[in-house]
């Protein structure tokens, strides 16, 4: 394995992330050089979420997305194939697409007019015969295309690295959960579409603040989000004091912080005590008819899964996306101190319009730039970021000790996963662990197949569940 040690002052990168002791230097969240290195080491290598096939249903449809700081175009070509291209002209670099989405025959560069087919081929070059006189081979000057793309049950992912493992291998034990996220509520594969458009806004903090803490920081909920229940933003209205979760009450389960430290993925996931899917509980007290739709869907899903043990249904897919049945959260790096947050909202493709509308209104109240939960979160991430940049402030490391050394396995309940108490910082340590590996790796060969978690990484697996 390539040991690529870089120094910050007199400190190596590895010395900034001490998972044994749960101490992490603030430097990795604010340092410009580390940020630039992330763009290369993390964002040109990892599989990244691009969008969903429902955003481009017809030939010629396109939607602009992002990989790291850079814009890409997800497009369906005239032969119905999906592609992901870098949004930059091969002539002088101009953006060839300046719309968020649309339908086109070609992407024509507004600068000098080079024109690219929806399959990326350069098809039009002004003055080609008269000026180039056949000296330039157009076939060598198409739009830059990602090295690998995967349409995973309707969701589209891509990487710039041809050495990366397949997307399914990248997901590892999270493959099944990721598949279920893109099912409709009756358990049908490829069952959702995304609301258009995607929410996009910028927040003044490093991408790792939200990216590494979301679905890994349950401890913040009681303090940060207490006001939400009081505001009763859920579809249940004032019922149960505005707290919807207990009303959903599936059959007996235990919630864990669940992660694959070797891969960096993880979420807050339940292990149920019995197979199958729990019966539906009504909660849409403020919107007539919605419960009827979801109850019927749930019955179909229960039938499909009656013999199967289900583990969890949300996941943070390393490095910067969290996928859930009703929302997808992406944190794009924009600069060391700025993150561009994107929210996409899946909804059952076949749902009646009034259900789609109700779900959309709920999600707008709940998340995004003006939703109540994320306003709470942003206040913390943004101010914590700012207060971590000072010369003196940077002398004091962050504390990631919660639950360190208390992880355990339950191969029967959650194969391949590492578990910890439902309020821990296990998932955040996993992400930091994988971050360090990516930042030090010379290539994918150094980090896949994965390196087993070292017993001294603050994530030693103590024992099997039931013996702790």
């Amino acid at each position, binding site marked *: 394995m390539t040991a690529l040690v870089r120094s910050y002052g007199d400190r190596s990168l590895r010395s900034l992330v001490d998972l044994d002791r749960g101490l992490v230097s603030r430097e990795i969240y604010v340092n410009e050089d580390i940020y630039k290195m992330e763009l290369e080491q993390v964002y040109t290598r990892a599989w990244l979420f691009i969008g969903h096939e429902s955003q481009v249903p017809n030939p010629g449809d396109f939607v602009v997305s992002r990989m790291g700081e850079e814009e890409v175009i997800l497009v369906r070509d005239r032969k119905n194939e999906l592609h992901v291209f870098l949004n930059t002209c091969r002539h002088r670099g101009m953006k060839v697409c300046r719309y968020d989405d649309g339908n*086109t*025959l*070609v992407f*024509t560069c507004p600068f000098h*007019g080079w*024109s690219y087919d929806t399959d990326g081929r350069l*098809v*039009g070059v*002004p*003055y080609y*015969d008269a000026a180039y006189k056949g000296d330039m081979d157009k076939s060598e000057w198409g739009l830059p295309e990602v090295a690998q793309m995967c349409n995973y049950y309707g969701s589209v992912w891509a990487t710039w690295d041809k050495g990366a493992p397949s997307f399914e291998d990248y997901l590892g034990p999270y493959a099944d959960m990721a598949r279920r996220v893109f099912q409709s509520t009756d358990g049908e594969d490829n069952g959702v579409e995304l609301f258009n458009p995607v929410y996009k806004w910028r927040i003044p903090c490093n991408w790792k603040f939200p990216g590494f803490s979301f679905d890994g920081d349950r401890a913040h909920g009681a303090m940060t989000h207490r006001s939400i229940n009081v505001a009763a933003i859920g579809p249940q209205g004032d019922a149960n004091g505005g707290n919807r979760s207990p009303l959903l009450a599936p059959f007996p389960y235990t919630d864990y912080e669940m992660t694959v430290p070797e891969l960096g993925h993880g979420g807050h996931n339940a292990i149920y005590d019995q197979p199958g899917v729990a019966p539906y509980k009504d909660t849409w007290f403020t919107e007539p008819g919605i419960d009827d739709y979801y109850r019927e869907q749930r019955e179909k899903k229960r039938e499909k899964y009656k013999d199967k043990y289900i583990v969890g249904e949300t996941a943070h897919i390393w490095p910067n996306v969290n996928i859930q049945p009703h929302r997808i959260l992406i944190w794009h790096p924009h600069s060391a101190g700025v993150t561009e947050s994107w929210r996409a909202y899946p909804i059952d493709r076949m749902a009646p319009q009034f259900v789609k509308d109700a779900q959309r209104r709920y999600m707008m109240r709940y998340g995004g730039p003006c939703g109540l939960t994320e306003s709470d979160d942003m206040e913390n991430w943004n101010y914590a970021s700012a207060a971590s940049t000072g010369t003196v402030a940077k002398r004091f490391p962050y504390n990631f000790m919660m639950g360190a050394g208390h992880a355990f396995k339950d191969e029967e309940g959650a194969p391949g996963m590492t578990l910890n108490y439902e309020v821990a910082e296990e998932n955040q340590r996993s992400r930091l662990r994988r971050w360090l590996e990516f930042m030090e790796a010379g290539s994918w060969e150094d980090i896949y197949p994965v390196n087993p978690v070292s017993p001294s990484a603050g994530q030693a697996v103590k024992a099997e569940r039931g013996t702790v």
Partner: protein
Amino acid sequence: MSTASDAEETKSEAIADSAVRSKKVIMITDLPEGSQVRLRNGQIAEVTANPRDGGWLFVKILESDADPSRVGTDDMAFCVDVIDVIK
């Protein structure tokens, strides 16, 4: 009195003129499919699709005296090469 920027503007207009080499600016953005156009190289072509970007047309070559083998082939025509709309 002319200023430096006047001179710049005149110069870039001249460049634009020489690039176009045409007295007439043909707006191609709204040309419907089936239109026929005359191209600078003498070919006559039919518009098969219009991406409506103002820069290009998808065409089928109908007449090509200089190179008859091009007749019937699909091509793309750049805006400044469209010198007339004949139908």
